[in-house]
């Protein structure tokens, strides 16, 4: 039994200690907004916050997350109104949407650490996440908007 704190809530899961946090979130806890894209830390679809830091949940053993605050897309804001989420809607960013939870989590962590990032800083940070639909221009615009409006 492993104890976790997910979106501010204490939970217990039955999983081997080396199980990727991704599967624990998705399959054991039903938080399917965190996506499986590559399992290799190459696409960022699985990005969550560990103590506020954007992290690939596919490369994180669940036991290593046990003493940290885990935040998923479902817990980013109570009602989907985080400034990044609002900006994402305003810029009409998602297409297929599959990568967008991860994109939003990384953008939110970036803005928490650096509320007024330069364009180069945005691009540098967001290079960890892939989007095959090609929503990149709108991701940049949405982060700039969130920084401006928050």
């Amino acid at each position, binding site marked *: 039994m492993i104890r976790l704190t997910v979106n501010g809530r204490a939970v217990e899961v039955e*999983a*081997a200690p080396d*199980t*990727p946090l991704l*599967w624990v979130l*998705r*399959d*054991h806890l*039903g*938080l*399917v*907004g*965190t*996506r*499986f*894209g*590559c*399992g*290799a830390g*190459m*696409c960022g*679809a699985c990005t969550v916050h560990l103590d506020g830091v954007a992290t690939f949940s596919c490369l994180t053993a669940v036991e290593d997350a046990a003493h940290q605050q885990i935040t*998923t*897309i*479902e817990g980013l804001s109570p009602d*989907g109104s985080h400034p990044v*989420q609002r900006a*994402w*809607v305003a810029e*009409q*960013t*998602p*297409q*297929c*949407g*599959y*990568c*967008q*939870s991860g994109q*939003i989590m990384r953008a939110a962590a970036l803005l928490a650490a650096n509320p007024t990032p330069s364009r180069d800083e945005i*691009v*540098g940070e*967001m*290079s960890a*996440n*892939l*989007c*095959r*639909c*090609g*929503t*990149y*221009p*709108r*991701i*940049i615009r949405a982060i700039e908007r969130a920084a401006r409006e928050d």
Partner: protein
Amino acid sequence: MTVTIHPSRRRFLAGAGGLAFAVLSGGGISVLRPSAQAATSTEPGVPVDAWVTIFPDDRVIIRYGAAEMGQGVSTSLPLIVAEELDADWDRVTVEQVSQDPQRLFGNPAFGGNLFSAGSTSLEGYFTALRIAGATARRVLIHTAAAAWGLPVDEVSTEPGVVVHEASGRRLRFGEIVALEEIRTDVLQVFEDDLKPREAWRLIGSGVGRRDIPGKTRGEAIYSIDVRVDGMVYAAQLLAPVEGEAPTVDNDADALSVPGVIAVVPLANSIGVVADTFEAALAGRDRLRVSWSTGSDFRSADSADELAQLAQAADDFSTEPVTWEARGDAAGALSAEGRRTVTAHYTTEHVYHAQMEPLNAVASVDHDGKGADVWVGSQSQTISLAVASHVLDTTPDRIRFHAMQMGGAFGRRTVFARDLLRDALLLSKTVGRPVKLIWTREDDVKNGWLRPATVHRLDAVLDETGRLEALRHRVASPSIMQFAFPNRWDPESRRDLLVMEGTESADYAIPNLLAEQVLVDRRSRVSAWRGIGWAPNCFARECFLDELADAAGSDPVSFRRDLLRDSPRGLEVLNKVVKMSGFGNPPEGRAHGLAFAGYKATLGAGVAEVSVTEGRLRVHRFWAAVDPGIVVHPLSYVGQVEGGIIFGLSSLLGERSTFTDGMIEQNNFYDYEILRIDAVPEIEVALVESGSPPSGGGEIGVPMTGGAVANAVRRLTGTQPRRMPFDLGDA
């Protein structure tokens, strides 16, 4: 003539659950009282055959037949119905059609099948949906007029309300459907009866996409997210080479992994079923399997294939398949004393790399003859047929749940049938619902690739430098023959999926010959975003720049002359030249131009590039596109931007290679798609000609190859001749 009405019962009890309109093939309408037949609707009371359902509380449900894969059809198609219905868009909810036993919802552009590919949804559905919405509106107007005892022509609508302006009387749509008598004896709606364009308030407007808020909250559900009571997970050990079959040497170690339930040999794979996906993966790692060794694909090698294609493109001893012939290009090319130019271009194999790895959930009934199926499919019709075939049952036994897709790009049409088959077989074997997931490695190594192509182009320039004759020869395996054997005609051997675009229909070329030299496939081949247009326009647009030089012309003038009979083509060309300031790039950079239609959608692109220490960078990209009517501009521009990025990705670095029949790449670390740091500033201008809508999913792709290659050539003096570009060439 009045519309067809059924069932015959025209009177509705006041206070009934609502009213549903179903548009039938042939343009008729049926008006139904909602009943328990709503088996495939998520909303009780919505008949399975209704485009539009209106409830007494003013809610309107509009269903759409295309499948959402990011292109925005879950908004754009219902928007068309809502426009003609004059619905209050804020009260509209949208709903995916999952199956269509009466063939009411199919795309007219795809033979009435539920099939979303090739940028055809708007083209195919536009008129049918307008008529559906207008017919529903007509019923509401007639019903309200009858209730008021007023002539129909004095009654009109505002969003969600029927109004009689003179008296100020108003009835909300919800009030009308609750009336005792619904007037369905209305005249059939024809195209001439539809709203004039200046009256549109939804089509072309800036309303947001319906699916976007949920996608920002992690609430969008794809098939990989589906959870069913009693569901177990499956991983698959797939044949290393196409066509090989497994023999299990030892499954005891796999079965000893806690949580592993079963090891199931399948035709070309082994399924490992477990309580969790991590256990299924661990069990798969411990399997000991021998594979047969007789497959012809054991010797498949992508480098050999490219060499063979290059040879075939120049081999005039084999009979090619003619795709298009105008005038006498062969005669012009063989005539004495003519100025001819020849060049070759190559494109390599590429993989779809949709972000959601292929997966399916199947729950087979205890008798093995029915199932629930959840899958993201570009064709509900095909997937349903696959499922009924696999279970040797009738389609009515398949409860198909069409899921939105985490990207598709051509990967999820027929090309995903094997995985659906295997999910069903695994569920049937273990007697429980099964979610079968491919890992990214499975997805990369079992890709159905856009085939490699080698293009040989020959041209004749007349004495004034005009293009008099063009032969565009493509050496390639046939996608149609492999992927759509039912639609492949062995007589004509025409391959739409490879050759379309080589006809260069928008250019005035008096003598044109487009032909395919068929080479046996050495990998699984399929359609990929942009289909044949991407390789074909890359080759042709590079060649045109070379011809412009040979003719002493320039890229713009040479193309303007070729577009002399295409006002729409000229318009987008001139627009992109203007917006980019073509030919006046900043110091150290160059501009390149390409014109690239995709069927009736016309586009032109300009790339601004630099090359520093062998590293190509695309700084800016301008595109002008004429897609006819733009139904939903926010989605449309996003599609064009995405297409441009998709195209740039393929020319800047994507490449699948194989040796000994095995794809060599594994994951995104060795199959690299474009990241945000390589994306240029993109500016898209929509040049609306008012033609019928002709789609936007592909148009961004075909213009990228030529525009970037031509810019590189202008900068370095060397023409890139191969996609992805090897700047060793430049």
